[in-house]
């Protein structure tokens, strides 16, 4: 397993419909350095361009200005070693493939020796997310939380050096979300990839991250970055009771809800 890699965004801007009257500035001058093996979360109000930011970081969308570099190499398309976990898990799984075949989708390009080897390799990841018994079911036969776990297993099977998470926990119920948090933390601690999460959920941001970057509303810029300084391993019950957790939560909620007059 390779270690996580660094991601650097330097003065990234993004305009939609550029040069036309309806031109909209989504991102204004975003600079951010994600360290190797770090868990960094970008929080921002809804519609502030968080997904746009992440898609640019992943090389799925072209920036209007600025540069993105992964381990110092410029990103001009989805780079190897980077995996993107989409918010819409129902839409990112292939409905004609079984669960295990969906996980295999992540590694098929890498020419593993045989079908059986590939399957065995991928089964390990299904076991990690507790879905080994569901390998031969189809995604649409599973609940939402289970589908997202399939997507997580698939993302990890690609052995990412950096994992981008686009609000992947926002469309499951609260209990399932907690379980998924535990799982992603455990997997991240085991495998030490770099993790970059975007979310509007402040508790989630504080619970998971080493560092939190606060994004303003459109046109977005990074208002500040905060070290959480919370001990690891995190615990779903005791961590949120720490004074530092509450302090961060308070501060972030305040700063995210404050500039509303300016957003309107």
């Amino acid at each position, binding site marked *: 397993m390779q270690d996580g890699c660094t991601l650097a965004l330097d003065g990234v801007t993004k305009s939609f419909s550029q040069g036309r009257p309806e031109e909209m500035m989504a991102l204004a001058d975003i600079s951010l350095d994600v360290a190797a093996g770090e868990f960094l979360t970008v929080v921002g109000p809804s519609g502030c361009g968080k997904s746009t930011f992440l898609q640019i970081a992943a090389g799925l969308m072209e920036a209007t200005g600025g540069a993105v570099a992964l381990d110092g190499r410029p990103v001009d398309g989805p780079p190897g070693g980077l995996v993107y976990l989409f918010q*819409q898990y129902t839409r990112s799984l292939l409905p004609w493939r079984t669960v295990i075949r969906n996980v295999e989708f992540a590694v098929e390009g*890498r020419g593993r020796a045989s079908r059986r080897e590939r399957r065995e390799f991928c089964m390990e990841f299904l076991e990690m997310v507790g879905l080994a018994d569901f390998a031969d079911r*189809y995604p*649409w036969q599973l609940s939402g939380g289970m589908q997202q776990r399939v997507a997580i297993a698939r993302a990890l099977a690609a052995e990412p050096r950096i994992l981008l998470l686009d609000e992947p926990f926002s469309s499951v119920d609260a209990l399932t979300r907690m379980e998924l948090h535990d799982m992603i933390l455990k997997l991240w601690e085991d495998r030490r990839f770099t993790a970059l999460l975007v979310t509007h959920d402040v508790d989630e941001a504080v619970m998971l991250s080493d560092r939190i970057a606060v994004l303003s509303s459109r046109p977005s810029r990074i208002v500040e970055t905060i070290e959480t300084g919370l001990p690891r391993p995190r615990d779903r019950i005791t961590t949120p009771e720490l004074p530092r957790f509450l302090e961060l939560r308070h501060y972030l909620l305040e700063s995210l809800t404050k500039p509303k007059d300016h957003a309107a």
Partner: protein
Amino acid sequence: MLHRLPVSPGRIAAVLLPVLLLLALEQAVDSGAVRRALIPAPSDVWGELVYILQGGHLWAPLGKTLYLLAVAYGCASVLAIGLGLLMGRSRAVYNLFEPLVEVIRPLPKPALLPPLILFLGIGDTMKMTVVGLAVFFPVLINTVQGVRGVDPVLVETARTFGYSGGRIVSRVVLPAALPFIFTGLRIALGLGLILVVVAEMLAGTGGIGFLIVDMQRTFQVTSMYAWLVILAVLGFLLNLGFERLEARLMFWSRQSEGRA
């Protein structure tokens, strides 16, 4: 109680209706109310059918018709799916072909028979061409629609896993668009059968369409009706087989849509 019956009364009536009509027709012909020279008794047609089947006279014309249909349907479908993938994926290719397609597509394809006969004569090539044209457009249109409807999240997922170009098309776009493509293929199969029969009637030397016209011209009316029955059964079986195949291959389509 009625609602516990495995077969509903409506269903029984639906099966009884054609049987009753056949019996009434039999009666009408027997009593002389209908001229036997125009419409033979159903029992006579049945007798003719048995003769055709037992005498082995079915296979040559059926084989000829199915051969024409299969070759034309296969080639046209492959071409249409190929072009449809290109048009669905590339804006430039779409813009290039769209006007041409929109001009030729609404044209009733039998109207092309006279010019095609002019160019290609009355042989198999002409028949396959006209059948192919009828098959091509519904498959093309549905493929384009299906490809354009593929969820961008699926394509982007594939891209982040290192898939590109041809492999995105073969692993993601084509399977995702397949339910649409199958709809086109099913419509095209019906149209193909119509066109192959029409072409054979106009310029045939064998095949079921030719036989139906030939029997009519030579006043073998009973035989003509027998071949019509064979054609009806063929159309029914082709459609049934296709629906079975579609249900088998596309089992995931309705299921996943229901949950999305």
